[in-house]
């Protein structure tokens, strides 16, 4: 007030900081601002609170409180006068966990699957750690070494050594992970090539890319899988019938490549024209310019979207059970019918287990995408 009323003003003493009025701070202030700011908001808050009260306690009771954790067979999970309420039968999952993870993979060979999981986890960790050393070697490891080694490891080495384990015996988490990993490992490079093809100046290359991408994106994955598993053998000579899992893998990989291509294309389009021109002006060839200048920038900003595609692909892998492949869902499906564990809660428990597995995996992936996004937003405008 003094400032406005006097022509000249000099501050005489500092004004001390005081806490804000209670309506705008603390728990009450927050509640008021965020949950009860208007009649509509109050109504929403009440509805949501009721929903949570209705769902969460019964879910917790089923999954945890009333759940049966130990037991050798169905007797443990049946309702008795002492235990009128029976929740999830985790004893069933514990008893069958090896089947869910390895399928029919021979018991004495299951260490090979464990080694595969470890090698894959190592590769994923290296690849997703943005500040990791030698990420160029990591790319070679992940996209070249790992697929070949994994195939030999899981399927067996031809000249003796590891005995052959045909893919019909693979199952459970192993198949789910293999399908998802092959889908991602194949679809990313293929998608990059298709995206470059779609932006190419050569009409034939561009036309092929457009037709492939649009055709594959225009049909459902189930159709692609049916075509791969039922129609493909019709076109091939009888003597050369590819493996059932391999056919599904090809279908999944081509399908996700088309989606990956569009994701990568969006990233390529975000790179300014000046970057291409600067690369050309110093005499870089097309492929060197792409490899050194354009793709590193385009892929980096596309990581969140690539991960989102991977999440989608990971969940889509459950569809392979339609063509008779034993993925995780299918193994649970098979185990729940086992009379040894036939109880009213067996199926629900099995499905809950699958749901939790998928949720944890996908949630981890989308958290990673969020983290990369946040890092790109703050850091990379350097």
């Amino acid at each position, binding site marked *: 007030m003094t400032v406005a009323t006097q022509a000249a003003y000099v501050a005489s003493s500092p004004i001390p900081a005081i806490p804000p009025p209670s309506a705008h701070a603390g728990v009450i202030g927050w509640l008021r601002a965020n949950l009860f700011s208007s009649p509509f908001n109050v109504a929403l808050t009440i509805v949501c609170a009721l929903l949570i009260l209705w769902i969460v306690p019964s879910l917790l009771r089923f999954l945890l409180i009333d759940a049966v954790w130990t037991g050798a067979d169905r007797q443990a999970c049946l309702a008795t006068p002492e235990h009128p309420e029976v929740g999830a039968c985790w004893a069933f999952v514990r008893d069958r966990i090896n089947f869910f993870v390895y399928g029919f993979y021979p018991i004495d060979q299951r260490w090979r699957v464990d080694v595969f999981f470890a090698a894959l986890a190592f590769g994923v960790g290296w690849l997703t750690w943005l500040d990791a050393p030698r990420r160029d070697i990591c790319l070679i490891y992940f996209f070249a070494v790992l697929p070949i080694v994994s195939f030999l490891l899981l399927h067996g080495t031809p000249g003796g050594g590891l005995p052959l384990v045909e893919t019909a015996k693979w199952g459970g988490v192993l198949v789910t992970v293999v399908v998802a990993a092959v889908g991602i490992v194949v679809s990313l490079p293929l998608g990059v090539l298709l995206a470059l093809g779609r932006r190419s100046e050569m009409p034939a290359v561009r036309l092929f890319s457009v037709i492939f991408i649009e055709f594959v994106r225009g049909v459902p994955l189930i159709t692609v899988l049916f075509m791969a598993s039922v129609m493909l053998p019709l076109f091939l000579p009888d003597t050369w019938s590819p493996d059932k899992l391999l056919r599904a893998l090809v279908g999944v990989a081509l399908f996700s490549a088309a989606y990956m291509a569009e994701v990568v294309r969006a990233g390529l389009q975000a790179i*300014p024209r*000046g*970057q291409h*021109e*600067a*690369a*050309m*002006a*110093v*005499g*870089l*060839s097309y492929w*060197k310019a792409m490899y*050194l*200048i354009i793709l*590193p*920038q385009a892929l*980096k900003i596309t990581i969140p979207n690539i991960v989102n595609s991977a999440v989608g692909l990971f969940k889509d892998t459950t569809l392979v059970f339609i063509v008779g492949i034993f993925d995780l869902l299918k193994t649970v499906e098979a185990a729940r019918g086992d009379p040894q564990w036939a109880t009213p809660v067996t199926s629900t428990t099995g499905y809950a287990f699958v749901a939790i597995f998928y949720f944890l995996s996908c949630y981890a992936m989308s958290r990673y995408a969020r983290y990369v996004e946040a890092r790109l937003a703050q850091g*990379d*405008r*350097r």
Partner: protein
Amino acid sequence: MNQVTSFLRPAPLNTDVAVEMIGVNKWYGDFHVLRDINLKVMGGERIVICGPSGSGKSTLIRCINRLEEHQRGRILVDGVELLDDVKKIEEIRRDVGMVFQQFNLFPHLTVLENLTLAPIWVRHLPRREAEEIARHYLQRVKIPEQAEKFPGQLSGGQQQRVAIARALCMNPKIMLFDEPTSALDPEMVKEVLDAMNELANDGMTMLVVSHEMGFARQVANRIVFMDEGQIIEANTPEAFFASPQHERTKLFLSQILH
């Protein structure tokens, strides 16, 4: 280390004529952007090209390293004709450095990596030598201490000086500048012009699209004035500023010189 020292001077031309454009025409769709351009740039010459926006001056110098394709006429760069042969074009681009209005540094690489990338991948120099050359040119443009930073951490003037150094690291015979100071804050223009000045003193053949008339007066051997896709007038700076011949030139000069 012989290779390194040869990289620290402008590369010698094979012929006397650095750039020759003979009857060059270009269209963007129906728009006739370059009309019968005839221009001969001798080795060591410094040409400043000016003119109103849309007059085709950027297009002209971008034709010299084939960032734009001309449709009629001939362009010879150090005696080699620009044709559709991709290998030939890449060879010419190696010897012709370019500096852009928007700098176009590679944002994912450090300053040093920006400078060494092309020498390593195109000239196939060992990394050590490429870095030695890069540090020399960073010194020349007076920002040796910024080598490990990323382009986004530098000011506009510093970025443009890095861009000049990046072009020089390829040991070019000819340098093209496409409005190098137009995107800069006023107080940063001088540091970039100083770097270009020094390059001119080394005897580099330069084609500069610019509105910096002070620079043109001081450094250019010839000024080329363009309007509506054609060369209206070309002359020495003294004659160009003192007695412009064409009406369009007089009008242009009256508008930019106050």
